[in-house]
């Protein structure tokens, strides 16, 4: 049975799983979760994903949520095909995991925080806290200075090969760029080089405008 990806086409986390599946040449069937009808909060949905978030996968009855956990599971299961996305050498794997954690601890909170203030709050009828938005940008800039140092020493964020750690940056970086913050990435030479490369991969181009 083909892998089912339950999500929303433009959801950052849904597109993350989609890009990973494509890199691995894993076919999937996209199942739309109707946010307009609050389907993600319905009992049928929360029975599978208790936090009412997207995406989750259904692989022949085995269900999993949290996009980074899903991505790891697929990358390990389909390690023999497509792009190798998780190293097998123990130390290389540790450096890869470090890259994943850098994204989720240092990048994501501020990328999300900024997007929350500028976009998500308005959708919920709340007002933007401009000071907080600025603070997130300022922190993000400092974090990306560290990225520029790291990416001056290694080709990718998880080591010298492309890994899931790089792919996990795609959706929110694109989001920040659409919110006019592209300069954060363009102004740092190693970050710019890395971003140009990962954002032009066919797998991302195929899903960046919809999973």
């Amino acid at each position, binding site marked *: 049975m083909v892998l089912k990806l339950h999500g929303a086409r433009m959801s950052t986390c849904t597109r993350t799983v989609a890009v990973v599946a494509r890199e691995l040449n894993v076919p999937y069937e996209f199942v739309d979760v109707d946010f307009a009808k609050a389907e993600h909060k319905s009992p049928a949905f929360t029975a599978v994903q*208790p*936090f009412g978030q997207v995406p989750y996968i259904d692989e022949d009855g085995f269900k999993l949520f949290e996009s*980074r*956990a899903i991505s790891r599971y697929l990358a390990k299961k389909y390690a023999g095909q497509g792009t190798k996305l998780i190293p097998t050498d*123990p130390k290389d794997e*540790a450096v890869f995991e*470090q890259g994943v*954690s850098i994204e989720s601890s240092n990048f994501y909170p501020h990328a999300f925080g900024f997007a929350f203030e500028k976009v998500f709050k308005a959708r919920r009828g709340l007002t933007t806290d401009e000071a907080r938005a600025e603070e997130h940008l300022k922190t993000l800039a400092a974090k990306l200075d*560290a990225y520029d140092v790291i990416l001056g020493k290694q080709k990718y964020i998880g080591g010298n090969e492309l890994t899931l750690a790089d792919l996990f940056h795609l959706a929110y970086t694109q989001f920040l760029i659409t919110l006019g913050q592209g300069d954060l990435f363009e102004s740092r030479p190693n970050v710019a080089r890395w971003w140009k490369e990962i954002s032009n991969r066919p797998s991302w181009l195929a899903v960046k405008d919809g999973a």
Partner: protein
Amino acid sequence: MVLKIYGFPFSTATRLVVFVCKEKQIPYELITIDLFKGEHKQPAYTKFHPFGQVPYIDDDGFILFESRPIVRYLLKKHASQGTQGLLPTDPQAEARAEQALSIEASSFDPNVSGIVAELYFKPQRGLSTDEANLARLKETLNEKLDAYEVILGKQKFLGGDSITVGDLAHAPYGTLLETVGQGEFFTSRPNVARWWKEVTSRPAWEAVKAECVL
């Protein structure tokens, strides 16, 4: 050469690494980095940790930072000793353990650390609590823990019926949440309370709290 952990005894991330070392009976040397003196922002430190955070490890010359990768690395390296099953090898069980660790990192840590910052760290630095932000963080944490309550009504731990690193990862910040008087988040939910008690009453966690002091 014994594992070196460069960290701070009260740092939650440092405590997670020490917790796993104790569970797996891994000998270590904890070298204190003086956060109050800004030692973590000095070039001698940022040379090894570009983000200037604690902890990082030096495992016979192999440098690694970010506590969750560090504990994964140690769990895999020392798989055969100490507590078993913290990071399963069966693909589906491993995926569920990773799902649990991701829940902790996405749903628990940001909200708890934010609450602790508003209630403790900001006042300590002479800054005032942002009440609106605090209220929003509490509301979000309540929603997340309501989902935990459902999950933990069906299975013993977050990753299944055996304890995994995803459960352990909650101990440092959860304990800090209790210290700032917010323990009701756990005690008000029967399944969460049961789970929380089990995770935090582990001898290894008691040992971390006793040992990781200044």
